[in-house]
């Protein structure tokens, strides 16, 4: 029953038409064609990217090793040579990079198409405004945190992977320790500021994403449901604390100046021990290696 006059009796109900019809296609296309399938893809690619940021952060913790410069540079060299001779030089690295690039593209493509779908689902916004009962700040800003982190990633690659002169004039290929130290040096403080803001946003993105992926993949169980939020929070916190500590450590002088000469890029790891670039008296061989 409808109060007042009866609009249903007097007026034809507006026809709501389906946006798209379901067509038989190859199952993987059809799977990705569904929104739940796209969300599953976002969750799985999200897990891949989460794994990357965690390993990336842990790898960079070598900055705090007693012999940080040697260890970090050696680690970066290992990333290029691991799997040899079964894999070619940089083979493993490119396998990982390939997976990351595909994940990144799929994650963004799914997010974009789902966002457009969601916009179409509410063409008329709430004219009197709306209030949120549960959606937290992280969830409501996923789009923005995602886009900003994505843009930062491009800058981050120009700065510390590709070493573009315009971004990072003193970049030396094969010497990540020197590059990190220089990138976060006090005279380049805006780089550190951008880096810290981007990592806080990354943390916000992870705080929602690392929880959300459980729902998207249907991983709900009374045994661990109460842990999902804690897991996402802890993951986000670990990434933010680890990553943000690097520029702070460099800016505060906690990280020693690089001593390896700039031109030793192609030198084998063994030569790193040579006194040629070890300051007199500090003795990089003190660990008894």
């Amino acid at each position, binding site marked *: *029953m*409808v*109060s*007042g*006059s009866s*609009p*249903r009796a007097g*007026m034809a*109900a*507006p026809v*709501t*038409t*389906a*946006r*798209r*019809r*379901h067509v*038989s296609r190859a*199952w993987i296309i059809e*799977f990705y064609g*569904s*929104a*739940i*399938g*796209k*969300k*599953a893809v976002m969750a799985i690619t999200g897990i891949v990217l989460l794994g990357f940021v965690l390993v990336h952060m842990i790898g960079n913790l070598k900055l705090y090793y007693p012999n940080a410069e040697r260890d970090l540079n050696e680690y970066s060299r290992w990333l290029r040579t691991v799997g040899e001779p079964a894999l070619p030089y940089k083979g493993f690295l490119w396998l990982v990079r390939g997976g990351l690039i595909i994940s990144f593209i799929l994650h963004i493509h799914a997010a974009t198409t*789902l966002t457009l*779908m*969601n916009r*179409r*689902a*509410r*063409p*008329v*916004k*709430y*004219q*009197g*405004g*709306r*209030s*949120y*009962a*549960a*959606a937290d700040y992280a*969830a*409501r800003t*996923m789009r923005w945190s995602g886009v900003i982190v994505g843009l930062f990633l491009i800058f981050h690659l120009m700065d510390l992977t590709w070493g573009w002169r315009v971004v990072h004039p003193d970049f030396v290929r094969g010497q990540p320790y020197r590059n990190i130290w220089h990138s976060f040096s006090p005279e380049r403080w805006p780089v550190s500021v951008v880096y810290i803001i981007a990592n806080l946003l990354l943390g916000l993105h992870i705080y*929602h994403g690392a*929880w*959300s992926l*459980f*729902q*998207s*993949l*249907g*991983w*709900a169980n009374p045994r661990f*449901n109460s842990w999902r939020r804690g897991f996402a929070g802890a993951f986000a916190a670990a990434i933010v604390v680890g990553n943000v500590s690097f520029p702070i450590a460099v800016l505060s002088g906690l990280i020693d100046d690089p001593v390896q000469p700039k031109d030793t890029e192609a030198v084998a790891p063994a030569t790193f021990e040579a006194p040629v670039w070890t300051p007199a008296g500090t003795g990089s061989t003190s660990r008894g290696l």
Partner: protein
Amino acid sequence: MNLNLTLKVWRQKGPADGGHFETYAAPNINDDMSFLEMLDVVNEELIAQGKEPIAFDHDCREGICGSCGFVINGRPHGPMKATTVCQLHMRNFHDGDAITIEPWRAAAFPVIKDLVVDRSTFDRIIGAGGFISAPTGAASDANLTLVPKATADLAFDAAACIGCGACVAGCPNGAAQLFTSAKVAHLNLLPQGQPERWSRVTSMVNTMEAYFGSCTNFRECEAVCPKEISIDFIAKMNRDFLQAKFRDRRKLVNAEAGEDAG
């Protein structure tokens, strides 16, 4: 105690009309009234003045039919938890309050008039699989099929959905995940629902996605649901849907061909 309120109500003559807010004074409202009774009083006054009363859906007025529902101050069914508009009492408001009232906003829920929206897209989702196929003949004994108590309780929690549409209205994406997942889970949990379990979830999700937005796990639906349906059912629906996609696909051909897409 009596309240003097100012209402800002969405008025829309019909589906084609653009609509606008209109402000009404609602003086001397008894705080024992429900929100709908308050609107009845306002409508009586409008009718006495020869004006068009505010159209809104309602039926049982005891929170179980799912007919009523609109957005009050930006929140579907208003500020109280686990409450439909008809169960919302005016004692939850204060004297002098300004209250904004607006219909559900979703492409799938076009406004028919004022606060009344067309929710027949929900019926299409139900039509796509929200049932079990039962052979006719003599009814079997009610307790012939054993259902574990915990399962029955969970299925009942899902079946508590009254289909009011608040989940869609509250969802920033205009998604119908909570409604659909409740209807899927209600049957997919029970033994009687097993024969059509995979085709049901596939068909109902496909139909849902033809009209509504997608879930981004805001949890807004769960918070505004008058029946407190849990988003655990959404996870369960996602799981069933993903599983269905990886099962013997030949068995799904009929289900997909028979799906209702408008």
